[in-house]
């Protein structure tokens, strides 16, 4: 009573205030503008100041973090780029707000669909960053980006992403999703190995058959 509540409340703020300086002295220069400092401010032991001073400091983005999608392309040894997308359309079908447009073409000679998108649009003014496209893509070709500094002055020019804006190299994917990338590569390696084994077995059988 008689203002005790107010004083108690103010004491908390005061404690917080001094806590910052005590921590400053204890941690020294490592407290600010270092990864270690940011990590400390996100830990359970943080006392005093809690602010991460964007843009000088940034919160690390965890691997699972998702913003808008991008398309992965492989850089081949001969210098050409091969986009992983086969325009199967699963991402467009599963997309909840239906923000993906894919144009598929057919080979004029055979009449069969070409496994490559001719046009690919994502309207990020509709996209809800849910990550379903990346979850369900069977070819690991669409992934969620970590890049969030996309503010612009004119949305009509920047906010509809086309194939050139969407495409990013596999090395970028490996950089931002190291665990997932390693897992995908492992699966792919096992698959290729099996295919190779099957091929060898087939050859052997053929050779055997021939020699007989």
């Amino acid at each position, binding site marked *: 009573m008689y203002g005790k509540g107010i004083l108690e*409340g103010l004491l908390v703020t005061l404690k917080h205030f001094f806590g910052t300086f005590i921590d400053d002295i204890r941690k020294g220069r490592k407290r600010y503008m270092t990864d270690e400092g940011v990590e400390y401010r996100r830990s359970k032991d943080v006392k005093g100041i809690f602010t991460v001073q964007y843009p000088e400091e940034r919160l690390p983005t965890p691997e699972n973090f*998702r913003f808008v999608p991008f398309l992965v392309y492989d850089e081949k040894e001969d210098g050409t780029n091969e986009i992983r997308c086969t325009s199967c*359309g699963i991402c467009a079908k599963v997309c*909840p707000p239906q923000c*993906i*447009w*894919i144009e598929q073409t057919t080979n004029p000679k055979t009449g069969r669909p070409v496994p490559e998108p001719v046009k690919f649009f994502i309207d990020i003014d509709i996209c809800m*960053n*849910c990550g*379903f496209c990346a979850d369900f893509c069977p070819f690991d070709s669409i992934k969620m980006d970590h890049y969030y500094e996309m503010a612009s002055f004119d949305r009509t020019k920047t906010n509809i992403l086309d194939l050139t804006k969407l495409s990013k190299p596999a090395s970028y994917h490996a950089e931002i999703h190291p665990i997932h990338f390693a897992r995908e590569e492992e699966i792919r390696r096992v698959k290729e190995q099996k295919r190779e084994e099957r091929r060898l077995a087939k050859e052997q059988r053929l050779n055997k058959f021939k020699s007989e």
Partner: protein
Amino acid sequence: MNEIAVVKSELEIRFPDAVRKDDREGFQGYIVEKESLVEVATALRDDFGYDYLTSVTGVDYIEEDILEAVYHFYRSTGGKELVLHVQTPRNNPVIPSLYKIFHGVDFQEREAWDLIGIKFEGHPDLRRILLWEGFNGHPLQKDWKEAFYVEEKKPFDNRWPEGKIQQIEELNKFGKNVRYPENFHDPESWKPEHEDLLYAGLLDLAEKTGSGLETDHVVINMGPQHPSTHGVFRMAVVVDGETITALKPVMGYLHRNHEKIGERNTYIQNIPYTDRLDYISSLSNNFGYAMAVEKLLGYTNEIPERAEYLRVIMAELTRISNHLWAIGFLLNDLGAYFTPSLYAIQERELILDIFEEVTGARMMNNYHRFGGVAKDILPDAMKKIENLVLDRLPRKVDELDKYLTKSELLQSRTEGVGVLTPEDAINMCAVGPVLRASGVPYDVRRADPYSIYDRFDFDVAVRYHGDTYDRYLIRMDEIHQSLRILQQALKDIPEGPILLRNPYNIKAPKGEAYGRVEGPKGELGFYIVSDGTSNPYRYHVRSPSFINLTGLEKMCVGQKVADVVVILGSIDIILGEVDR
């Protein structure tokens, strides 16, 4: 024979003509003749103990040419539901209102009128609630089309394989699907029919509750832009001096057509949309929706053990972060301005860090799938959760407790303010902290256990005064109980798979399902009707914030204007969920 079966057979004996079993494929409960609905509902409340009518909604069966109202009855002492269906022809959809028996149907019947077009006869104030007076048509009827209408069902055909991007609104700028009423000639002079009903009704109420002295009534509109209405919420308040004599909430300023879009989506596409209902506690919304669909699919008993634990851990973390936010902003409404919120948000940020690491987003988590969860908690993140739950949060919550709970500022502003009696609370279908602060120990986690909540040792927090202070305290208690659950869950969590199966397109068998969870704001229910395709035929959200607002008027009348803000803060509404 279990208890529910007894009630059911007795119901049939007592009303042989009016009540018959619902024998449609996948449906449960009874079909009641609309003439005797009031009689049956009264009997259910008074003789059978089903005194808690939590959900009322409508379904448009266009092929059978009927509109149907669906009622979910519960006992306030716990147990399973009893479902009543009432059918009415589409060309003259009239059903008697249950307003006199269950006050809590007030908003729900208005919503069913607004969106589906069922007229509830005897409802004293049947106005549009989410849309505005003069809006054309009832949007959830199956033959109603919106201006940007593309197709009946998702996925849309124009996205693939000939995806020519087009801005739908540019094509159809002033949608051809708008129909104009007969008396509409000039947009400048047109006035919708019932526009003045709000103020007329308000002044009427004010007359009744007035002091008898001849005073002028002043109508004050708080909102939709008001710093303390927690979003775009409006209250029309009649004051007599400083005292409130009548109050009516006006909502719909964030009505985002969740249900209409939800009926167009496939089942899995709805999961990220549920994130955006109660956007403070997305993971709990995911949980409820996933449970409802799992009921429909018959997965309920097959969910992997680890997934169940992950769900509970995430749901309880969500509850803590939600209550921290609510407490912070209650204090903000009380005039402490931003300081307590800053301390509360600090802890919330640490929880959000975990969400971001595990699910990929701070708020819109999109974590649950049918038959499990999307991502596992890696050891790194698990360590962080343990640090928080075992070390930091108990410490910090105690700190909050120490300087807030006994603070005379808080006590003098909240004690005895906005009282809701237990009888009223049940009658008004209040749920969650609002109900439990009024002395009714009803928590879905205990009353009708779902997932693995029956394994944990925790108490249902309950307080008995029903005022704002108790609603604050109950949130503090619940944080402590959530921490208890988390501590047990973290100890017991097994290794194993986290997801049953995850196809991108699921067809649900025909039928209906109602899944409910105890969200941070109370009972969150999802009512889904399936017609056997991959899109829900009817998708309804029974949202706790929306229905808790029914009691707002009762709590506010007789209080001072300044207290309205506090009372609203203590109900803890989120507009995304109120308006959907």
